[in-house]
C-alpha cells in the first residue's frame, strides 16, 4: 500500500486524471443512489421500529400493489392475525384551505384511520393522537392532528393551540394533537395535518357548512368498489414478511369469495414499507434505473479510460514487473501489487467523489422545494451512500485495474536481461485498442442516450395537444378551500366569467372542472 501510494505520487498527472475521472463517475452514482435510498430504502423520519412496518394494499393480477376500499380495510383490520395494528390512509396528501385566526392558506393534509399514529409508532409532541371512536363512520369527529412543522409555522409552537378550532375548507376542526418533530407522513408525500377518514369523506362530499353535517358520511366508506386507501401494518414480533403475505392473501381470497361483485380479480398484497407509495414504485424504480444506467455508463467510461492509462503505464513499467517476477514474485503477487494501485486510485477517487456528491446533493436538495408537489425526498450522504461508494470504488478498481494487471503479469521474463523491452508485440496493442474501442463505444452510447433524452423532453414540450394554445391564459381557482358552497361557487364563476369576457381583447372565457394537463384541479380559463 505504501509503495502504491508512493508510486502514484511519483506520477501526479496520471494520478490526478485517474482520480478525477473516478470521482466524477462515483459522484454521479452516489447522488442517484442517494435518491434511490430516499425513495426506497431509508425509513421516513419519526417512525419507530420501521423494520416491522409494511405497506398493505389491494392487488390485481399482473399489477403492483395499489389502493383498496375502506370496507376491505376494515375486514382486514378485524380478521388479520399477523399485525399488532394496521392503519389506513390516503397515499397522497391533498391541498386544503386551512383557516387559522381568519387567515386562510393552502395546506396539505391526508385522511387516516384513528390508529395511524399508533401503528406508525409516532409520539405526540403536544396533545394526543386520535382517540378510539373518532373515526367511526356513524359519528365522525371533526378533529385534526397537526404536523410539528405546521404547528411551529402557524402557532409558533404554542401548546395552547391544542383545543383551538381551525377551519378546513370552511369547516371547523378541533386541534387535538401535534405529531413528533420531523414526522410528515409514512411516505414521501408530506402532510401538514391529518384528519380521520370519515371526516375527510364528509368534507369532500361537500356536506354543508355546519359541523353537524359532517355526520353525513359519504357512500365511499361503504363501497368495496371504491379503492382509494392504502394501509400500514405493524407486524407482530416474530412474524415474517412471508407469513404476513400468506395471511393477507388468504384474507384477500376470502373477501373475493364473500363479495364477488366488487372484489372479483382483486386480492390483498403486502410489501416492506417504502417511502414511495405502492402505486408509484414501478415508475419511480424505472426512472431511477434509467438514471443509474446513465451514471453507470459514465463510470464505465471512466473505467475504460483509466484501464487504458494503466495499460500504457504497465508498458512503461514492464521492466519493473519483469524484474519483480525474476526476483521471485508470483503472478498473484504482481496482480495484487498492481490492483493495490488501482484500489488506491479508486479509493482516492471515491473520497473525492463523495465530496463532489455532497455538493451535488446540496444543489439538488435546494431545487426540490421548488417543485409544485407536496413531496419530501431528502437526499443525503448517509452510511448507505458511503458504503455504496466504497463498493463502487472496489468495482472500479477491478474493472479498470484487473485486465491491465493480468496483462502486466504475463511479462516475458527473459526481457529482464534486455535493455530494449519497450516493444511488447501485437497482443498488448490489441488490448490497448480494445480499451479505446470500448471507451469510444460507451461514449457514443452515452451521447446518443443523452441526445435522445433531450429530444424526448423537447418533443414533450412542443407536442401538439390537438387544439391551439396560442393566446390562452389559464388560472386556477379552488373556492372550496375557502369554504364556498356549491351555489356560491357557481355564482362566483358566472360573475367572474362574465367580467373576464368584457375585458377588451378577450375573445372568450370558459370554466372547466379539470384542465387537460392537470387531472386533479378545478380550473377556470379565459382566452
Amino acid at each position, binding site marked *: 500500500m505504501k*509503495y502504491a501510494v*508512493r*508510486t502514484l505520487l*511519483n506520477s501526479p498527472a496520471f494520478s490526478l486524471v485517474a482520480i478525477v475521472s473516478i470521482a466524477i463517475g462515483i459522484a454521479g452514482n452516489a447522488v442517484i443512489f442517494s435518491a434511490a435510498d430516499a425513495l426506497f430504502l431509508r425509513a421516513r423520519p419519526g417512525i419507530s421500529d420501521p423494520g416491522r412496518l409494511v405497506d398493505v394494499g389491494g392487488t390485481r393480477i399482473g399489477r403492483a400493489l395499489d389502493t383498496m376500499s375502506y370496507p376491505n380495510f376494515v375486514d382486514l383490520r378485524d380478521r388479520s392475525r399477523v399485525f399488532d395494528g394496521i392503519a389506513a390512509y390516503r397515499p397522497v396528501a391533498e391541498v386544503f384551505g386551512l383557516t387559522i385566526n381568519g387567515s386562510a392558506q393552502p395546506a396539505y393534509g391526508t385522511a387516516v384511520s384513528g390508529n395511524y399514529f399508533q401503528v406508525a409508532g409516532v409520539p405526540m409532541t403536544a396533545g394526543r393522537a386520535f382517540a378510539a371512536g373518532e373515526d367511526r363512520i356513524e359519528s365522525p369527529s371533526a378533529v385534526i392532528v397537526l404536523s410539528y412543522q405546521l404547528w411551529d409555522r402557524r402557532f409558533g409552537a404554542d401548546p395552547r393551540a391544542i383545543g383551538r378550532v381551525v377551519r378546513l375548507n370552511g369547516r371547523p376542526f378541533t386541534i387535538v394533537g401535534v405529531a413528533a418533530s420531523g414526522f410528515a407522513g409514512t411516505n414521501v408525500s408530506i402532510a401538514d395535518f391529518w384528519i380521520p377518514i370519515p371526516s375527510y369523506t364528509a368534507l369532500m362530499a361537500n356536506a354543508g357548512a355546519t359541523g353537524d353535517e359532517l355526520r353525513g358520511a359519504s357512500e365511499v366508506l361503504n363501497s368495496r368498489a371504491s379503492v382509494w386507501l392504502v394501509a400500514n401494518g405493524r407486524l407482530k414480533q416474530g412474524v415474517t414478511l412471508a407469513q404476513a403475505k400468506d395471511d393477507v392473501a388468504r384474507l384477500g381470497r376470502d373477501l373475493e369469495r364473500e363479495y364477488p361483485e366488487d372484489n372479483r380479480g382483486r386480492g390483498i398484497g403486502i410489501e416492506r414499507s417504502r417511502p414511495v407509495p405502492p402505486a408509484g414504485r414501478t415508475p419511480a424504480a424505472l426512472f431511477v434505473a434509467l438514471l443509474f444506467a446513465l451514471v453507470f455508463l459514465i463510470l464505465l467510461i471512466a473505467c475504460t479510460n483509466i484501464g487504458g492509462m494503466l495499460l500504457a503505464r504497465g508498458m512503461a513499467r514492464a*521492466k*519493473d514487473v519483469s*524484474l*519483480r*517476477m*525474476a*526476483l*521471485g*514474485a*508470483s*503472478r498473484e*503477487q504482481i496482480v495484487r501489487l498492481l490492483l493495490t494501485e488501482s484500489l488506491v486510485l479508486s479509493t482516492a477517487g471515491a473520497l473525492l467523489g463523495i465530496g463532489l456528491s455532497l455538493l451535488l446533493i446540496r444543489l439538488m436538495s435546494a431545487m426540490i422545494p421548488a417543485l409544485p408537489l407536496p413531496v419530501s425526498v431528502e437526499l443525503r450522504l448517509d452510511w448507505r451512500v458511503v458504503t455504496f461508494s466504497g463498493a463502487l470504488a472496489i468495482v472500479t478498481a477491478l474493472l479498470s485495474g484487473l485486465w491491465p494487471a493480468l496483462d502486466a503479469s504475463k511479462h516475458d*521474463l*527473459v526481457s*529482464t*536481461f*534486455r*535493455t530494449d523491452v519497450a516493444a511488447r508485440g501485437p497482443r498488448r496493442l490489441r488490448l490497448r485498442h480494445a480499451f479505446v474501442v470500448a471507451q469510444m463505444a460507451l461514449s457514443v452510447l452515452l451521447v446518443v442516450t443523452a441526445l435522445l433524452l433531450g429530444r424526448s423532453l423537447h418533443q414533450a414540450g412542443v407536442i401538439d395537444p390537438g387544439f391551439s394554445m396560442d393566446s390562452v391564459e389559464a388560472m386556477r381557482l379552488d373556492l372550496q378551500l375557502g369554504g364556498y358552497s356549491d351555489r356560491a361557487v357557481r355564482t362566483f364563476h358566472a360573475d367572474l366569467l362574465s367580467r373576464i369576457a368584457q375585458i377588451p381583447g378577450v375573445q372568450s372565457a370558459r370554466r372547466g372542472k379539470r384542465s387537460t394537463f392537470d387531472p386533479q384541479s378545478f380550473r377556470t380559463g379565459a382566452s
Partner: protein
Amino acid sequence: MNQPLIKLEGVRKVFYTDEVETHALDNINIEIAKGEYVSIAGPSGCGKSTLLSILGLLDTPTDGKYVLNDRPATQLSLSERARVRNREVGFIFQSFNLIGDLTVYENVELPLTYRGMRSAERKQRVTAALERVGMAHRAKHLPSQLSGGQQQRVAVARAVCGEPSILLADEPTGNLDSKNGEAVMDLLKELHSSGATICMVTHDARYASHAERTIHLFDGRVVEESVATSSH
C-alpha cells in the same frame, strides 16, 4: 569436482517466429559445482544470455534436462519456478535493474518480501547485506541518487541477501567504468571466497579470467572450457 549444483544435459533452445526457427542453444551439457566460480564467455549473439535465462529459470529449454540442487527444474510450474528463483537464485544484471521508486533498503528487501519472511529477519539480512557491499550508509537513498558502481553494489546486496544457492551475473560490469568494474569483480571474488557459487556471463576476457573456469560458447554450442591456472 564437488557434487554438481547445476547440471544441464543435452539442452536445446529454439525460438520460433512466424517463418524463422532460431537455434539459440544446441546440445549444451554443463555442470557447475557448489562453490564454483564459472564464467560463460563468447561473442554477442552466441547464446550466453539465453543460457543464463535457462539457468535462472526465467526461460525453459526446448529440449534437454536441467537439474538444480538435485531437483529437476524443467517441468516446474510457473509458481514453483518463481519460488525456486526466489530461494535458490540471486541475479546481478548488467543494467543494475533497481526499482526507481524504492529506496536502496527496499530494493534489497524485495526478494525477501516475496519469500514471506518476517520483518525482523528481513531487516537483519538487508542490513548485513548492505554492510557487506559497503552501502549501509545509503540505505534510505533512491537509486537515482547513486553512481553506477554504487547501484551495482546494491544489486549485489539484493542478490546475496537471500543466501541463494547460486549467483547469476549477466555482464555485471557492462555499464561500469573500469574502476567500478574492477570493484564489482573484487566484490564477486570476495563472495566466492566466502563460499558463494557464481556463474557470470561476460564477453570481456579480462573479467572472464576472474573465474575458476570459463565456458566458451559459439553459435549456441559449448566450444571450449578452460580452467584458470592462477587467481587474480
